[in-house]
């Protein structure tokens, strides 16, 4: 967990009434950190600091990406990693996205900026082109987080997805291939094309049960769709009325020694299946960038608890003690 000393304070926006905070934000009033913008942790030695600050206000956040209100909202850089578990994943470089979040009047808006040199709009006169797109995924709080790749059976996630030249749609999913259009009110979107990429604002109603968001971007020029995308790890957010944030402390705990974990990885021959060029198991080249330590510990200790769809059920339960599992997870967290 981050310490109060390290974390910058939330930047309050104009017109914020303390009364709005409610009991759930008592921690914030007491000076505990709600935000952790700044550099991405370099490795597992640093405490897992995946917090996205949310600027709070009484009024609904602006939909216009150029609204000056956004200037006062803290910026968080979020790396988006090529999805290595999808059969058609894009490969390539990590994408540097910047996020600003603002909440007011029951609505959350995310202003996302990411580089994309080519503008690929939805083309109604082409059968072979794909549009640039972006999405935000929402997870409710709990002991653990749902699988970051579109949730898992029984653990649904909500998704807002926008595509260039089109609108945003509200969706929900419980794992690969389960994406379903939400019949309720749809999120709004407004996008701006810059010389180098996109600036997008997504806005919609979000309840206080939401504890984390993950972000994704598709690039039309590389036929981006479905799993052919780049995605972030879950990032915790704190909305007014939410329960205290400590609930994901176990999930975020990084206790092991990555060097010992690396030796265990080699000794148990994990790379035979999880090799850099694929194999019977998912590639782990970005495992630390996409996953949380708790998820990695779970997938080592109880691989049958959730299996990435499309991979066969051959992962053995290794004879490891809890300390060794921590070490392995710590090693995997260094893979970015």
């Amino acid at each position, binding site marked *: 967990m981050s310490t109060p000393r390290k974390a910058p304070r939330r930047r309050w926006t104009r017109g914020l009434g303390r009364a709005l905070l409610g009991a759930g934000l008592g921690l914030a009033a007491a000076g505990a950190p709600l935000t952790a913008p700044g550099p991405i942790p370099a490795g597992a030695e640093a405490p897992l600091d995946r917090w996205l600050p949310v600027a709070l206000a009484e009024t609904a956040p602006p939909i216009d990406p150029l609204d000056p209100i956004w200037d006062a909202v803290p910026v968080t850089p979020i790396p988006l990693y090529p999805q290595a578990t999808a059969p058609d994943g894009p490969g390539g470089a990590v994408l540097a996205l910047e996020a600003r979040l603002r909440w007011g009047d029951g609505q959350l808006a995310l202003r996302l900026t990411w580089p994309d040199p080519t503008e690929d709009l939805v083309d*109604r*006169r*082409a*059968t*072979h082109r794909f549009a640039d797109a972006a999405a935000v995924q929402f997870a409710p709080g709990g002991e653990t987080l749902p699988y970051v790749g579109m949730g898992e059976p029984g653990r649904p996630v909500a998704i807002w997805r926008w595509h260039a030249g089109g609108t945003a749609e509200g969706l929900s999913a419980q794992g*690969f*291939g389960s*994406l379903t259009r939400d019949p309720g009110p749809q999120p709004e979107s407004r996008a701006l094309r810059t010389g180098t990429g996109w600036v997008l604002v997504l806005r919609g109603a979000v309840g206080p049960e939401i504890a984390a968001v993950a972000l994704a971007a598709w690039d039309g020029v590389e036929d981006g*769709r*479905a799993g052919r995308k780049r995605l972030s790890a879950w990032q915790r957010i704190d909305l007014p009325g939410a329960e205290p944030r400590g609930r994901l402390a176990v999930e975020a705990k990084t206790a092991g020694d990555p060097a010992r974990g690396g030796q265990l990885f080699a000794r148990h021959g994990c790379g035979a299946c999880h090799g850099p060029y694929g194999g019977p198991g998912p590639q782990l080249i970005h495992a630390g960038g996409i996953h949380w330590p708790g998820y990695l510990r779970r997938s080592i200790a109880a691989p049958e608890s959730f299996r990435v769809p499309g991979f066969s059920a051959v992962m053995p339960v290794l004879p490891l003690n809890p300390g060794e599992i921590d070490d392995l997870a710590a090693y995997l967290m260094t893979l970015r």
Partner: protein
Amino acid sequence: MSQLGMVIDLNKCIGCQTCTLACKSQWTDRAGREFMYWNHVETAPGQGYPRGWRTAGGGWDGDRLRPGRLPRLEEDYGIPADFDFAAALFQPGDRPLRPLEAMQWGPNWEEDQGAGDFPNGFFFYLPRLCNHCTHPACLAACPRQAIYKREEDGIVLIDQERCRGYRYCVAACPYKKIYFNPLVGRSEKCLFCYPRLERGIPQACAYQCVGRARHVAYLDDPEGAVHQLVQVWRVALPLHPEYGTQPNVYYVPPLSPPVFDADGRPSGEPRIPGDYLRQLFGPAVETALATLQAEIAQKAAGGESALMDLLIAYRHGDLFRLSRPRGGRP
């Protein structure tokens, strides 16, 4: 699973495109489907429709999907011509009725072009539609399980509620018989006219065929023409069986007149090269052609041929047996 099949007799197809229009006016005449031909007739040899579909990949390589590419609307399907009827027909002057944009390609662009040099040029017509494969690559390629194969008749359909327009199916189909609708953002394909079948009416393409070239029946119906032609007589063959999808549309391969030799005398060699037909229909095409020739000769000599009677189809209704075979499970 019961499988409804179709046999198309290429020796009876005259390339009139009545099937194409029957299908188009029934299913694909609007709303982003203008360029789509769920059923079309191409001239073989040729690049076909969409252009170069044989080299666009897809199908199976053992138990793995072979990669495929997506056809392009303008270059490979051809943008449908639009006409200014009001100007051409109702305004003074002699402006001809011509496409507003010059066409570069279309579904029947190479009609009657064929191959070979005079006097030995050759071509035949190849009607194509979704093969409602037994081992469909499209179904396997869809990450959303939006494609399903009906238990009762083996028809392969795309659930429009589940489809999100990813087009993995389009790339995976080696026959390029799934079309992405760019207006609605979903993929669409031949339905084997299931709404007609469910009312006891054959597919529009088969029912309207003026040449009586199409037979429709369940493959496991021993009295049906499809079973007779495919399993008993073995004169109906799938197109490109090497693609591995096990098509359920079968073709009676084309016979051809003899090659003329240098002195202008007919030789014993058929005009359509055997190699070309083997490429299309596999090695079994030789036996199929030999059987056809033998039965034709027998009938021509005044003898009986059950095969010829079946292919002639004296009554239109004999082409179709749509009721599921007795004992067949739905």
